[in-house]
C-alpha cells in the first residue's frame, strides 16, 4: 500500500502525451492581442500546431513560419527572421507583437536571435517611425522540456521583454492561470468580478470561443494587450495557479519589480478553489461574497449525489498536464474516486518533489502509481492488464484508443479534446468546473453501464 513515484524506463516514446516546446510557446503567443507568433523553423512546426489548436477550439489562429529551407540549415536563418518580421508588419497594420519562437533546428544551427531582433528593430524604426512593434525572443528548442515548459517560457519572455520598468502602482492583480480553456478564463474573471477585484489575466483566452456574426467579423484572438503585459510590473501582486505554466513569470516580477508572487494549488476541486479565493481575499482584503458561497454549495450539492453512491472505490487513471493531473487527483479524493495512476509526460525533475504529490502520498491508503516522463503506452499496458483494473480514464483525446480498445469509460479533460464537442467552452477549474467534471464522469460511467449491460438497471430509478 502506498504511492510509488517512478519514471518511464524505455528510451523511446510510444504515443506521446505532450507536444514539444515550440507548440506550447505558440499557445501562449496566440493569447496576446494583435500578435502573430513567428516560428523560426521548418514549416511543419507551425502548420501542425495550428491544426492542433483548430482541432481543439474549432477555430483558426494566425501563426507564421520563417519557412526554414535547406540553404538556411547550411548558411543560417537570420535573414528569414528579418524577412518574416518585415513581411508580417507590412501586411498586418494592426500587428503589435511578434514572438520569435525558436525550434530544434534553429537552436542546433545556432541562429543569433537577439542580434537579428536588434537588426529588425532598426529596420522597423526606419520604415515605420510611428509604429511600435515588439519583437520578442522566445528560446524553445524542441529537445528540452515539452509544450508545458514552452508555454511557460513564452509567457516569461513576453513579460521580460514588455514589462521593462515600474510605474505607478495599478492596484491590480496579475493572474497567471496556466494553459487552460476559455471556459476557465470566463469563470476566473467571474470570480474576480464577484469579489470586486481588478485583475489582468495572462493570457486572456476567453475569445478563443468566438461567434459567427451577421457582419462576418472575426474575433478569434487573445485579449491580453501590450499594455497589460507592460503593466504587470505595477501590479499589487501576482497569483499563479499553475506551478509549471506561468509561475516563473510571477517569480520574475517579484525578483525584478517586487511584485509579490503567490503560487497556489491549481484550483481543481472544492478545497483548492477555496484556497485560491482565500488567497485572493488575503491579497486584496476583499471578502469572499455570498454569491460564491452559493456557487460552492450548488457544486457540493451536485457532487454529493454522485460521490458515495457511484464514485466510491472507482479506480481512476489520469494523464495530461502536470498541474491538471495533480489537481484532478486531489479532486478525485474529494469525491471518493480512487486515483490509482497518474501519468506526467515529460522529463521535468521537479514533479517528483512537488509538495502536492508528496501530500497525495500521505493521503492514499491504496496503491497509487505516479509515472513521470510517461507516454500513453504506459497507460495502455496497464489498461489492458486485467489485474490492474482501471474503471475510468481522465485525460485528453490522444488517449482515446486506449479507452476504446480496453473498453474503459473515459472522460475527456485537458488539451486537446478534439473528439468531443464544445469542451473548451466549459470550466474545469473552480466550483463549477468541479461540478461539471464530476457530472461528465458520472454520465460516462452511466453510458458505459448501459452499453455493457452492467447494473444499468440501477438507474431505472435515481
Amino acid at each position, binding site marked *: 500500500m502506498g504511492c510509488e513515484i517512478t519514471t518511464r524506463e524505455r528510451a*523511446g516514446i510510444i504515443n506521446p502525451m505532450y507536444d514539444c516546446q515550440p507548440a506550447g510557446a505558440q499557445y501562449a503567443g496566440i493569447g496576446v492581442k494583435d500578435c502573430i507568433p513567428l516560428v523560426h523553423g521548418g514549416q511543419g512546426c507551425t502548420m501542425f500546431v495550428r491544426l492542433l489548436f483548430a482541432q481543439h477550439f474549432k477555430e483558426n489562429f494566425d501563426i507564421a513560419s520563417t519557412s526554414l529551407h535547406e540553404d538556411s*540549415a547550411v548558411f543560417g536563418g537570420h535573414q528569414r527572421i528579418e524577412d518574416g518580421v518585415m513581411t508580417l508588419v507590412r501586411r498586418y497594420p494592426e500587428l503589435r507583437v511578434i514572438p520569435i519562437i525558436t525550434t530544434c533546428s534553429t537552436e542546433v544551427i545556432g541562429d543569433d536571435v537577439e542580434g537579428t531582433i536588434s537588426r529588425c528593430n532598426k529596420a522597423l524604426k526606419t520604415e515605420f517611425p510611428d509604429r511600435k512593434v515588439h519583437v520578442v525572443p522566445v528560446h524553445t528548442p524542441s529537445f528540452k522540456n515539452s509544450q508545458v515548459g514552452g508555454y511557460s517560457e513564452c509567457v516569461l519572455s513576453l513579460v521580460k521583454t514588455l514589462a521593462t520598468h515600474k510605474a505607478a502602482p495599478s492596484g491590480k492583480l496579475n493572474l497567471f492561470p496556466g494553459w487552460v480553456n476559455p471556459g476557465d478564463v470566463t469563470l476566473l474573471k467571474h470570480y474576480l468580478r464577484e469579489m470586486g477585484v481588478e485583475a489582468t489575466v495572462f493570457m486572456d483566452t476567453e475569445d478563443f470561443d468566438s461567434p459567427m456574426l451577421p457582419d462576418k467579423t472575426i*474575433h478569434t484572438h487573445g485579449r491580453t494587450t501590450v499594455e497589460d503585459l507592460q503593466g504587470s510590473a505595477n501590479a499589487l501582486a501576482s497569483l499563479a495557479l499553475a506551478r509549471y505554466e506561468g509561475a516563473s513569470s510571477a517569480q520574475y516580477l517579484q525578483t525584478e519589480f517586487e511584485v509579490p508572487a503567490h503560487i497556489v494549488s491549481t484550483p481543481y476541486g472544492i478545497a483548492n478553489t477555496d484556497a485560491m479565493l482565500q488567497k485572493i481575499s488575503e491579497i486584496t482584503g476583499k471578502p469572499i461574497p455570498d454569491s460564491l458561497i452559493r456557487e460552492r454549495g450548488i457544486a457540493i450539492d451536485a457532487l454529493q449525489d454522485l460521490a458515495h453512491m457511484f464514485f466510491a472505490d472507482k479506480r481512476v487513471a489520469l494523464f495530461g498536464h502536470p498541474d491538471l493531473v495533480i489537481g484532478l487527483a486531489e479532486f478525485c479524493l474529494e469525491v471518493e474516486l480512487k486515483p490509482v495512476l497518474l501519468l506526467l509526460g515529460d522529463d521535468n525533475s521537479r514533479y517528483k518533489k512537488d509538495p502536492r504529490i508528496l501530500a497525495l502520498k500521505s493521503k492514499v491508503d491504496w496503491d497509487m502509481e505516479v509515472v513521470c516522463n510517461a507516454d500513453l503506452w504506459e497507460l495502455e499496458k496497464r489498461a489492458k492488464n486485467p489485474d490492474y483494473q482501471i474503471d475510468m480514464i481522465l485525460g485528453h483525446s490522444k488517449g482515446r484508443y486506449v479507452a476504446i480498445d480496453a473498453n474503459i469509460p473515459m472522460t475527456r479533460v485537458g488539451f486537446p479534446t478534439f473528439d468531443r464537442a464544445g469542451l473548451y467552452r466549459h470550466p474545469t477549474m473552480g466550483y463549477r468546473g468541479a461540478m461539471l467534471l464530476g457530472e461528465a464522469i458520472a454520465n460516462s460511467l452511466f453510458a458505459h453501464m448501459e452499453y455493457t449491460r452492467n447494473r444499468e438497471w440501477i438507474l431505472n430509478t435515481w
Partner: protein
Amino acid sequence: MPMVLLQCDKDIPEREKHIYLKVDGEDSRDYLPVANASTIPGTLSERGCAFCGAKLVIGGVLKDTIQMIHGPIGCAYDTWHTKRYPSDNGHFQMKYVWSTDMKESHIVFGGEKRLEKSMHEAFDEMPEIKRMIVYTTCPTALIGDDIKAVAKKVMEARPDVDIFTCECPGFAGVSQSKGHHVLNIGWVNEKVGTVEPEITSKYTMNFIGDYNIQGDSELLQQYWDKLGIQVIAHFTGNANYDDLRSMHRAQLNVVNCARSAGYIANELKKKYGIPRLDIDSWGFNYMAEGIRKISAFFGIEEKGEALIAEEYAKWKPKLDWYKERLRGTKMAIWTGGPRLWHWTKSVEDDLGVQVVAMSSKFGHQEDFEKVIARGQAGTYYIDDGNELEFFEIIDLVKPDVIFTGPRVGELVKKLHIPYVNGHAYHNGPYMGFEGFVNLARDMYNAIYNPLLKLAATDPRGALTTPAKEAAE
C-alpha cells in the same frame, strides 16, 4: 489577362508570379504560375514540411509497420491524429506513433545509441510487428546521425525484422512534396524486388498514389476484384510493408496521385519495364475512363463495360439527384495540389459545379499545366496561397463552398462559407462511383445548411455588411 498581383500582396510583389487568372483564349503556354519554389517567410503559408510528406502522407499509412521518428517529441506528436486513413486490421497505423524523444544530451553527444535502443524496445513491446520505417527529422539530420547504419545493426540482431530508412528532414525542399520524392525513390531503390508475391491472377497491377482516405482503396478494391485483377501493392492505402516490396512483379502501374507517387511509377518503368497508366479516381466520367483504360490493357473490355454499367445503374440516379440541386454552385479548392486537377473537371461534368478558385500548397508546375488545361476561364489558380490572399480571393469570386482543411474551414466559417474537408473528407470515401455520390451529398448538405442563413441574419433587422476582417 496575365498574372495577378493582389492588393494584400503589394509588399510582396513576387507573389504576382504565383497567381494566374485564366482568360478565354489563353493557356498555360502563355502563363504558368511559379510553383514548388521557396516560401516567403511570414506570409502565413499553408505548407507543411518534407518530413510530414514522407511520414504522414505515405509511409505512415502502412498498416503493419512501426513508424520510428528519430527526433524530439513534436514531430511524432504532430503527425498523429491528423489523418483519416483506416485499415482492415483495426487501424494500427492511426493508433500509434513512435519517437526517440531526443533530448539535449543526445543532440550534443549523438542520438544513434538512443535510436538503436528505441528500435529494439518498439519491437519488444509489440512482438507481433516485424516491420519498421525510421525517419530522420531536422535536428537529427543536422547532427548527422547515421540511421542507415543503426537500422543495419538492428536487422543483424533481429533476423526476422525488416527496416526501411527515410532521410528527409523537415527543412528539405520547400514543402511536403520533397518528402514524397525521397520516400518514393528510397523505397524503389532499397526495397522493391526483395519479396516475391504469390500470383493469383493472370492480370496483375500496382495501384499507386491512393492512401485509403476514409476507405478509398477498399472501395476501389471491389472494382479490381470484380475485374479479376490482382493488386500486388496499393501504394500505400491499407497496405502491408511486404506488399510494397513485391511491386516489381506487376504487369501494370496504375497511378492516381501523380504528384506524391508518380516517381515510383517512373522508376518501376525504368528498372522493370512496367508501363505506367495515369487515371483519375474521383468522378463518374473519369472513373469509367480509368476502368476502360485498365480493361483495355488487360484485354478484358467486356468485363470493364459490365462493371461500369452496373455501377452507373446503381449510382447515377443518386448523382443526378444532387446534380439537379448543385448545378451552378461556385466551389473553391484549396488543398495540396493534385486534387485541383482531379476535381475541377469532374465536378463540372458530373455535378454542374463551377470551380472559381484553386490554391495548391505543394503542386509543381506540371500540376498547374494540368489544372489550367482542365479548369475554366475566370478562375484563379494560386500556388502556395496565404491567408490574406484567401480573404481577397473570396471577395473576388464569392464561393458557395470551399474544399480545404479543417483549420481554414474554421476560418471561412466566420465568413458564412461552409467547408468540406478536401483532405480527409467529411463523410467519404469520395473515390469511385459511390464515393463521388458521397462527395456530392456532402457538398449539398454543406450548401443547404440552414444555419448559414441564420448566421447572416441580424434579429434586430439590420442589414448585413460585406465580409471583412475585424478591425479590433
